[in-house]
């Protein structure tokens, strides 16, 4: 067998062209491509096969390596991001270095994007030729092993973050749960009932919240945000910034005597938790079941912050505990974790953006989230559904798809609105006996028990009108419309325009990415779709992984989803993080850079350009040296070095030159 590692012996190359069923073969003349490859210099054998990635396909490669003493392999198939690990494994099992492989992407980059067979085949030939020229220069490389810290950071304490944190903590690993609001619970904590079972949301959520708060393996930081993330899979350094709540958390016992004692006898400021439907004091507990049970002070509202002349009755009430600290400042803490789960959730569509529906103009136009609070037993009206003037509505219109499936705002279906609209329709009808009209485009109720719930609503006498609402207005043209809001919509099933006078309009607002999703994604070095939803590594096969190893996503930050889906995804993300931690180490790609000392002039240009300060100047030799542990393998130093004395493994200058020239060498 020729020495695969010796650059002086001519390489023996095998080329393998995959049909991928008909995915490739339908657009590329695969036999012609294989035949062409067989004629290229140093190619000993070229074959085609239906599915190269299958066991027999891989065995074909392994057998050839053994029988023909192959030292380099080119596989022309799908994207290397798909099957490079598969074929590297085949090489290793046949006894040659994993990095003697070059993949040619003739599926995603050729057969799936072109239609002319002749042109596609010509392009594939160019790509194969380049790969054959390049692979000759490949050097044996070894992956680096790094240890994985078992701690996990979960960002966002909604139902997804809570479930992920508990799952990991129950396995015995330590979790840091960071939530930017003063309490965990997220959107789910706002709901009264959950569809389609009508479980009480608080009854199923608050035990989990309490469990998080008291779990020995969970460090819960609320009112805190991730400020910076450094490092790589298994070894992330995360800076967490604690916002001042002006309460010493360890000393506060949540008795709320301070709230009681506040100089303001009544609440005056919009209560965030109730979406402004009630008022709170400057010192407050976000909501009765908040976790942690710690109050906080709103410095914008508190007299002490404004004038320093407050009687500070709260401090008096707190007494010996001394939990109130007006001088508290933001602080930063640094933690080391092995992996990160991002579960930062969603925001709802700002209903005023769709001006035709009169949100913010007519007081009795509500968003669905506001109605969630109104129907909630612990909400501002203790669950009584009343209008702003205190009367009970007799006619209620629920408008679906507000900020969803709309080319003027958001094009996507928010997935949960049909079901929550049905739930609200049920609750409103049950509690007030009002006539409820649902205006919908399509009823989308795919899910266990969902369609059955829709059937139940039909039986309950809730009205359904199929058609997008044109406008909500208060101009009566008939005596029955006096003093009412009139919903004007085309009834597409009946085939005419209808005017429905109602007392209350509920806008079923869609789900949107958080407004700072783009900043958050940069923080964690993950991608997001054009809309701002975080991007999974693979929509089907890696739905909670991202393109950054060790960073996972869960819940609605990835796209609109309901509670069961969020919980399932959180469980999956937790399992991924635990699998990583249990493996104890991870193998990193060996694409690091190294300095060819003989050629290095010691100009230090590379030192300034490395984003990871992985290059140091060695005073004794007056040469640069790359610290391979810190190097992440971007290769920018190799492109920068004026004397060409830095090389990046697997992306060496010469390898890329060969690829360029191979592409352009006319056959």
């Amino acid at each position, binding site marked *: 067998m020729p020495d695969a590692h010796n650059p002086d012996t001519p390489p023996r190359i095998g080329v393998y062209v995959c049909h991928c069923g008909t995915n490739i073969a339908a657009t590329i003349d695969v036999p012609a491509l294989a035949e062409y490859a067989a004629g290229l210099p140093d190619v000993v054998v070229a074959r085609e096969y239906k599915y190269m990635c299958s066991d027999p396909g891989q065995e074909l490669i392994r057998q050839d390596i053994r029988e023909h003493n192959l030292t380099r392999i080119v596989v022309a198939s799908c*994207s290397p*991001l798909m099957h490079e690990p598969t074929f590297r494994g085949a090489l290793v099992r046949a006894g040659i270095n994993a990095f003697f492989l070059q993949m040619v992407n003739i599926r*995603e980059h050729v057969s799936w*994007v*072109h239609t002319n067979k002749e042109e596609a085949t010509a392009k594939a030939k160019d790509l194969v030729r380049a790969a054959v020229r390049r692979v000759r220069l490949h050097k044996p490389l070894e992956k680096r092993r790094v240890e994985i810290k078992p701690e996990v950071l979960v960002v966002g304490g909604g139902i997804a973050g809570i479930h992920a944190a508990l799952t990991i903590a129950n396995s015995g690993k330590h979790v840091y749960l960071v939530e930017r609001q003063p309490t965990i619970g997220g959107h789910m904590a706002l709901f009264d009932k959950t569809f389609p079972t009508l479980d009480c949301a608080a009854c199923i959520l608050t035990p989990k919240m309490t469990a998080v708060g008291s779990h020995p393996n969970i460090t819960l930081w609320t009112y805190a945000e991730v400020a910076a993330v450094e490092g790589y899979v298994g070894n992330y350094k995360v800076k967490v910034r604690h916002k001042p709540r002006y309460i010493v958390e360890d000393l506060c016992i949540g008795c709320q005597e301070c709230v009681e004692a506040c100089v303001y006898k009544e609440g005056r400021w919009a209560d965030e938790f109730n979406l402004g439907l009630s008022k709170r004091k400057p010192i407050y507990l976000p909501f009765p079941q908040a976790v942690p049970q710690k109050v906080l002070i709103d410095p914008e509202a508190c007299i002490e912050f404004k004038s320093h002349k407050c009687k500070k009755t709260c401090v008096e009430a707190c007494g010996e505990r001394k939990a109130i600290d007006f001088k508290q400042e933001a602080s930063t803490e640094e933690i080391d974790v092995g992996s990160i789960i991002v579960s930062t959730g969603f925001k709802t569509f700002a209903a005023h953006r769709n001006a035709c529906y009169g949100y913010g103009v007519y007081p009795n136009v509500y968003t669905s989230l506001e109605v969630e609070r109104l129907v909630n037993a612990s909400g501002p009206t203790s669950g009584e559904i009343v209008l702003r003037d205190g009367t009970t509505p007799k006619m209620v219109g629920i408008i679906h798809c507000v900020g969803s499936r709309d080319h003027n705002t958001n094009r996507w279906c928010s997935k949960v609105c049909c079901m929550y609209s049905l739930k609200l329709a049920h609750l409103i009808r049950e509690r007030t006996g009002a006539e409820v009209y649902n205006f919908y485009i399509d009823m989308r109720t795919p899910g266990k028990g969902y369609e059955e719930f829709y059937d139940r609503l039909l039986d309950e006498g809730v009205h359904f009108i199929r058609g997008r609402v044109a406008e909500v207005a208060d101009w009566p043209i008939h005596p029955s419309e006096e003093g009412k809001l009139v919903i004007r919509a085309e009834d597409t099933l009946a085939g005419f325009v209808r005017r429905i006078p109602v007392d209350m309009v509920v806008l079923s607002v869609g789900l949107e990415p958080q407004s700072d999703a783009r900043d958050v994604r940069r923080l964690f070095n993950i991608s997001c779709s054009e809309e701002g939803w975080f991007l999974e590594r693979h929509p089907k096969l890696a739905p909670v992984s991202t*393109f950054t190893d060790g960073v996972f996503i869960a819940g609605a930050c990835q796209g609109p989803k309901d509670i069961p889906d969020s919980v399932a995804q959180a469980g999956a993300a937790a399992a991924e993080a635990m699998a990583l931690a249990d493996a104890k180490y991870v193998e990193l790609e060996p694409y690091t850079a190294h300095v060819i000392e003989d050629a290095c002039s010691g100009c230090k240009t590379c030192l300034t350009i490395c*984003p990871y300060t992985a290059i140091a100047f060695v005073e004794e030799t007056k040469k640069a040296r790359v610290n391979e542990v810190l190097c992440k393998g*971007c290769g920018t130093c190799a492109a920068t070095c004026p004397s060409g004395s830095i090389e990046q493994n697997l992306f060496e200058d010469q390898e890329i030159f060969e690829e360029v020239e191979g592409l352009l060498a006319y056959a």
Partner: protein
Amino acid sequence: MPNAIESVSGNGQVSTEVAEPRIVGFFCTWCTYLAADLAGTSRIKYAPNVRVIRVMCSGRIDPQFVLDAFAHGADGVLIGGCHPGDCHYQQGNYNCLRRARLLKRVLEQFGIEEERFRLEWISAAEGDRVRVVIDDMVEKLRKLGPLQLKRGPALVRGGSGEQVPQEVGV
């Protein structure tokens, strides 16, 4: 690939032969290469003129690679990287941008038209942008015709620039 095709204009007249441009693409692994993969999985169709070389980061793209491509017959070079601020390696795309600006001036001196060298930010989610950029570039280069590189040897890697000293420069 055919070196020339016949193009038929709207009024049915057959125009003179148009050479199909050959374009070398350098795409970063994390954004533009992924976007091209996404274009594939979405079955978006675009012109077959670009051959892509994958690099880990657009910051890895040495201006010499671009010169080498032109010297060996490329009619255009397309670099694809992550959007500003989105680099998987923090700032590689900024390094790429700086080099590209400088390189553009060098290419100009070689008589290589501006349209032949293009730097685009295409994120992993922008599969359709791959089509838009490639189709647009191919269209422009078709109009421009093949690259007529008179001073080729000076560009060729290992080639001797001294042979044509008078011609190099502004």
